[in-house]
C-alpha cells in the first residue's frame, strides 16, 4: 500500500482520536469567538423583542435530551428574554421525553426572575398525535390539554383562564428537533394565522428556509451556531452572560476544520492515484 492508498483509507480510529482531541481541548479551555449574527437569527430575536409585555407566548418544546446540546441554549436564551419582558409562557410538547427537561429548565430560569408557575408560566406537558394536536389547539387548548404536567386542571390555573386557542397567543415558538415546524406552519399558521418563530437542529434547518422566505416563519434559529448568535444578541440587549452555545462554538469550529482536512487528504490520495494509474490503463487499452 503506497502513500496515496494510505491517504484514502485512514483508519477510522485515527479519525476518532483526532476528533476527540480537537473537541475536548476547546471545551476544557473555552474562548469566545467573533460571531456574526445571521439574518434569520436576528429576525427571531427581533420578533420576540416585539412581543408586548403581559401578552402570552406558546412554546412547543419538541426536543428531548438527545438534542439538548443544540437546542437547550436557544431555549434558555429565549426564556430569559421572555421573562425579562414579562411575557406569559405556555409550554407544550409533542415529544414524550421532553416534559421533564422543559420543567427543569423553566423552574431554573423562572426562579431568577421571581416568576410563578401557573401565573406567569405553565407546562402543559406531552400529548400524542403530532399534527392533530397542533391543529386541535386552534379550536380549544383546554380540550386537548385538560390538565398541566403535574395533573392540575387547566380551569384552576390562573394563566390558562383567558387562553383558549392561537388567537390568545401573540407568538408561537417551536423548538424542534424533528419536523414539527412543518405542522405549525401548515396548521397553526396556515389554518389559524398564528405568528411563528422556530429553532431547529443543524440537520433539519435546511428544510425550513423556504418558510422563512415566504414569511410563514418570522425568524429561524439554526443549530448551535444560531444559539451562539442568540446568546450574543442577548448579551448585547440584556447583558446576559453567554452560555454553553458560545463556549461550544470553538469546539465545533475546530471539528469542522478537522473534517475538512480529512476530506482534503482523502481527495489528494484519490487524485494522485488516479493520475498515476490512468496512463497504465491507457497503455493497457492500446
Amino acid at each position, binding site marked *: 500500500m503506497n502513500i496515496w492508498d494510505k491517504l484514502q483509507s*485512514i483508519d*477510522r480510529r485515527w*479519525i*476518532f482520536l483526532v*476528533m*476527540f482531541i480537537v*473537541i475536548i481541548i476547546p471545551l476544557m479551555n473555552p474562548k469566545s*469567538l*467573533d460571531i*456574526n449574527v*445571521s*439574518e434569520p437569527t436576528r429576525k427571531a430575536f427581533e420578533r420576540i423583542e416585539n412581543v408586548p409585555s403581559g401578552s402570552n407566548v406558546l412554546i412547543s418544546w419538541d426536543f428531548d*435530551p*438527545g*438534542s*439538548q*446540546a443544540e437546542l437547550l441554549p436557544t431555549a434558555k436564551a429565549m426564556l430569559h428574554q421572555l421573562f425579562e419582558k414579562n411575557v406569559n409562557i405556555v409550554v407544550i410538547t409533542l415529544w*414524550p*421525553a421532553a*416534559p*421533564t*427537561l422543559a420543567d*427543569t429548565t423553566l423552574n431554573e430560569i423562572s426562579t431568577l426572575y421571581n416568576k410563578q408557575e401557573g401565573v406567569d408560566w405553565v407546562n402543559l406537558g406531552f*400529548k*400524542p*398525535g*403530532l399534527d*392533530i*394536536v397542533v391543529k*386541535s389547539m386552534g*379550536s*380549544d387548548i383546554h*380540550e*386537548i390539554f385538560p390538565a398541566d*404536567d*403535574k*395533573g392540575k386542571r387547566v380551569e384552576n390555573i390562573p394563566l390558562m383562564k383567558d387562553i383558549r386557542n392561537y388567537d390568545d397567543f401573540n407568538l408561537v415558538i417551536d423548538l424542534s428537533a424533528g419536523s414539527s415546524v412543518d405542522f405549525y406552519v401548515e396548521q397553526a399558521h396556515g*389554518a389559524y394565522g398564528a405568528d411563528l418563530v422556530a429553532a431547529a437542529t443543524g440537520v433539519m*434547518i*435546511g*428544510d425550513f*428556509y*423556504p418558510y422563512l*422566505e415566504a414569511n410563514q416563519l418570522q425568524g429561524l434559529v439554526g*443549530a448551535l*451556531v444560531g444559539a451562539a448568535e442568540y446568546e450574543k444578541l442577548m448579551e448585547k440587549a440584556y447583558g446576559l452572560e453567554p452560555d454553553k452555545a458560545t463556549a461550544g*462554538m470553538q469546539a*465545533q*469550529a475546530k*471539528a*469542522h*476544520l478537522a*473534517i*475538512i482536512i*480529512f*476530506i482534503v487528504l*482523502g*481527495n489528494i490520495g*484519490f*487524485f494522485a492515484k488516479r493520475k498515476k494509474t490512468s496512463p497504465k490503463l491507457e497503455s493497457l487499452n492500446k
Partner: protein
Amino acid sequence: MSNRGPLAVAFIAGMLMIGDYFLDWGPLNSYAEWVQKYYIIIAAFAIVLGVASLFKLHLGKLKRKEDGWRYSIVTFFGFFAMIVTGLFMTSGDLTGTKHPWNAWLYTNVQLPLGATMFSLLAFFIASAAYRAFRARSLEATLLLLAACLVMLGQVPILTGGVFESLPEIKQWILDIPNMASKRAIMIGVGLGMMSTALKIIFGIERTYLGGSEE
C-alpha cells in the same frame, strides 16, 4: 361488494375533513374536532403498541439467547425502573414523572445517555464524510464544495482576507440553491400527498383495505 362500506366511510370522512378546512360551519367544525380527539386517543394506543412490541422483541432475544441478549436485560431493567417509578410510586403530591426517583432516573440516566448518543454523531459524521466526499464526478465535486463552504461559513474560525465572505457564501447556498431544491421537493411531495388522498377518498386507491384490489 363487501368493500362498499369501508369505501363509503373513507369517502364521507375524507370529504368532511376537507370541508372543515375550508368552511366555517358549526356542525362540520364540531365533527372535525370530535374526529381529532379520537385520533389523539388512537395515537396514545400506538405508544402502548410500541412498548408492547419492544417488550416482545427483547423477551424473544432473551428466550433464544441471541447475540447481545445481555443488553436486553439492561433494556428490561430501564424499562421497568421507569414504569414502576412513573406509574406506581407516590411521595406526597408527587406522582408520575414528578416522583423524585423517576426524576432522578431521567436526570442522571436518560439525559446523559441521550446526550452521549448525540455526541457520537460528531465522530461518525467525520468518518463518513472522509470516506464519502470524493470528487469522482461533477455532481460529487459540487456537493463536496458546497459542504465544505457551508461547514466553514457556519463557524467563525477562518477570518480575514478571502475568508471574510464565507458567512455570506454559506447563507447564499442555503438561501438560493438549497431553498430552490427544497421548494421543488416540497411541492412534489405536496402534490403527491394530495393525489394519494384524493385517490383514497374516491376509492381509486384501495390497497389500505388489504387483500387484492379485485
